[in-house]
């Protein structure tokens, strides 16, 4: 007689209604093979957005950077705003897959794979923006450290070069972490398919067999990956923040920037996880895997990051007043009452006030409310980057050089739409061809089959 005993990993927020390993495979792989009509509709809309973005960038390449509203003194404009925004979005994936893994937060199990995918796609898109902002994108190789006739090397003392190194390391590490975690699942797919699919998944599963030795080495590698990714994720957005903090610009030149940016990055990343996973669980029928309990845990974490972000806003303004620097003080007064003041107040409401509602359990467990909060926090975080980047450049020391960035042009909007569309497009492709939920981790989280004698 078959009975099921509870495995120690079975958790409160874990998968529901799955009692056998076969059922796990059937549900997760079944969603891949036949994702349903909504999936194709979403893919088509996202694909259209990608075309809009590609056309806009192509137009800018053909006509020059004048197609964007980037002029002195705000030379970084929306492109660097988008860059920092997307790097921020990338942060929750590693938080969920690596940091929560080290803390043994088992509610991460069903969402770690999707979050890691989100990280990779977000970093890829973030990496596009410095290229878009270059104008002459074909000269990008100048930033690479290669031997050349004039002995010119990138300056490794510059925060901008730190950034290139940090972002490319983050992309590489995130990708390898994601791929390594997926190898056993690819082998599961290999063993359930035939023909061309079998050959493709077989190639990428690298001949994985699942022996005791394989699992031991895999477990060691996964733990070490997590241990290495954890300081990396903290460092990456710190390094991004130094792009600003190391410049002597009022509003940028502050030691709080690194922790403030990291908290903000995780804040926006978790919000994006909600925005992606709430529709995904519906489209793919994953309600029993990505449970309300899991989403509630994300909501609780957003409270934490929202409070840190809100505190950082207050500290920034307090230090500007307490520090006594006239330019700094003027910058922060201008932020609250100047040209970008509506962006500033929108940022405060979305990032620091709206998450407070998550203190209420009724809100935390309501899908529509969670989805709306996810959207609002993302809007708020985008505006935070605009306020910091454009606001500070627009109002530096000398009134003679003041000026404003008059919001994105139609080309910049097209590229922004294209970036979001590309993100969703890539994610949808990922959901079609790869398991969005870690099959082996779900198997670890459900009761083990045991025969009672």
């Amino acid at each position, binding site marked *: 007689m*078959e009975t099921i005993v509870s495995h120690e990993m079975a958790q409160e927020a874990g998968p529901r209604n799955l009692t056998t*390993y*076969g059922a796990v*495979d059937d549900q997760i792989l079944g969603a891949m093979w036949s994702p349903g009509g909504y999936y194709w509709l979403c893919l088509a809309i996202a694909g259209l957005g990608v075309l809009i973005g590609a056309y806009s960038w192509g137009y800018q390449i053909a006509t020059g950077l004048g197609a964007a509203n980037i002029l002195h003194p705000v030379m970084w404009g929306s492109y660097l705003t988008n860059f920092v925004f997307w790097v921020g979005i990338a942060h929750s994936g590693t938080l969920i897959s690596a940091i929560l893994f080290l803390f043994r937060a088992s509610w991460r199990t069903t969402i770690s794979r999707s979050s890691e995918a989100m990280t990779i796609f977000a970093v890829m898109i973030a990496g596009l923006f410095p290229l878009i902002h270059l104008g002459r994108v074909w000269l990008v190789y100048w930033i690479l*450290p290669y031997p050349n006739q004039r*002995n*010119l*090397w*990138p*300056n*490794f*003392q510059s925060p901008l070069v*730190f950034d290139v*190194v*940090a972002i490319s*390391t983050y992309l*590489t*590490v995130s990708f*390898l*972490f994601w791929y*390594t975690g997926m190898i*056993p699942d690819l*082998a*599961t797919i*290999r*063993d*359930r398919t035939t023909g061309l699919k079998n050959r493709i998944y077989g190639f990428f599963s*690298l*001949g*994985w*067999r*699942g*022996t*005791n*030795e*394989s*699992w*031991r*080495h*895999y*477990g*060691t*590698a996964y*733990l*070490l*990956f997590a241990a*290495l*990714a954890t*300081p*990396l994720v903290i*460092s990456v957005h710190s*390094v991004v923040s130094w792009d600003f903090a190391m410049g002597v610009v009022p509003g940028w030149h502050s030691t709080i920037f690194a922790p403030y940016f990291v908290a903000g990055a995780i804040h926006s990343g978790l919000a994006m996880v909600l925005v992606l996973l709430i529709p995904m669980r519906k489209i793919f029928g994953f309600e029993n895997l990505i449970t309300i309990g899991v989403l509630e845990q994300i909501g609780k974490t957003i409270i934490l990051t929202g409070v840190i972000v809100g505190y950082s806003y207050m500290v920034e303004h307090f230090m500007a007043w307490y520090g006594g620097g006239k330019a700094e003080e003027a910058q922060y007064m201008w932020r609250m009452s100047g040209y970008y003041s509506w962006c500033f107040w929108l940022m405060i409401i979305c990032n620091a006030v709206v998450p407070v509602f998550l203190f209420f359990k009724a809100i935390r467990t309501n899908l529509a409310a969670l989805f709306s909060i996810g959207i609002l926090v993302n809007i708020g975080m985008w505006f935070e980057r605009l306020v910091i980047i454009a606001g500070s450049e627009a109002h530096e020391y000398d009134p003679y050089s003041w000026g404003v960035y008059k919001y994105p042009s139609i080309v910049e909007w097209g590229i922004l739409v294209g970036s979001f569309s590309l993100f969703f497009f890539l994610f949808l492709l990922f959901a079609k061809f790869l398991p969005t939920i870690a099959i*082996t*981790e779900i*198997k*670890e989280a459900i009761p*083990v*089959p*045991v*025969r009672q004698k």
Partner: protein
Amino acid sequence: MVKKLAVVGIFAYLNELLSAIEGLKSEKIRISAVYSPMRIEEIREALGEPPLGPGRFFTLTGAILGAMTGIFLAWYTSIQWHFIVGGKPPVPVIPTVIPAFEFFILIAVFFTLAGLLFLNRMPKRRLPVHYDKRFSQDRFGILIHCTVDSCEPVASLLEDLGAEEVRRIEE
């Protein structure tokens, strides 16, 4: 080429697999491999293996090499550029921390992955003959390499220990 003989016992239940491992150990029969669809601590404990594999030494090597690479790159490129600005040192220390840290992580991760692949003898184009596709889904397996004389007793023992299927393999 001489063919190797092996017996594979396939199990549906974890408790029977664990008792089979204990039974084989008490009979002093060497287990070549135990297959499972996911990581199971109880199997590792039953086999008496340490929790961590030697892959960590690959990581350590990569981490040291990576940090040195970052420092070398930052200092070498700095020395190549003979242009002293504002009395700043040509070979700085503090800004070197960032490339050193990033390369430390990057190369350590490369070595971790290389260690995983090396220790698991991956990538492999073909799966071994004894491999059963159910091992990645919902079945457990015990592989025992044997001689012509010992194969039958081992197979009978596996059946007695609860294997739902026992296969004799030549590979």
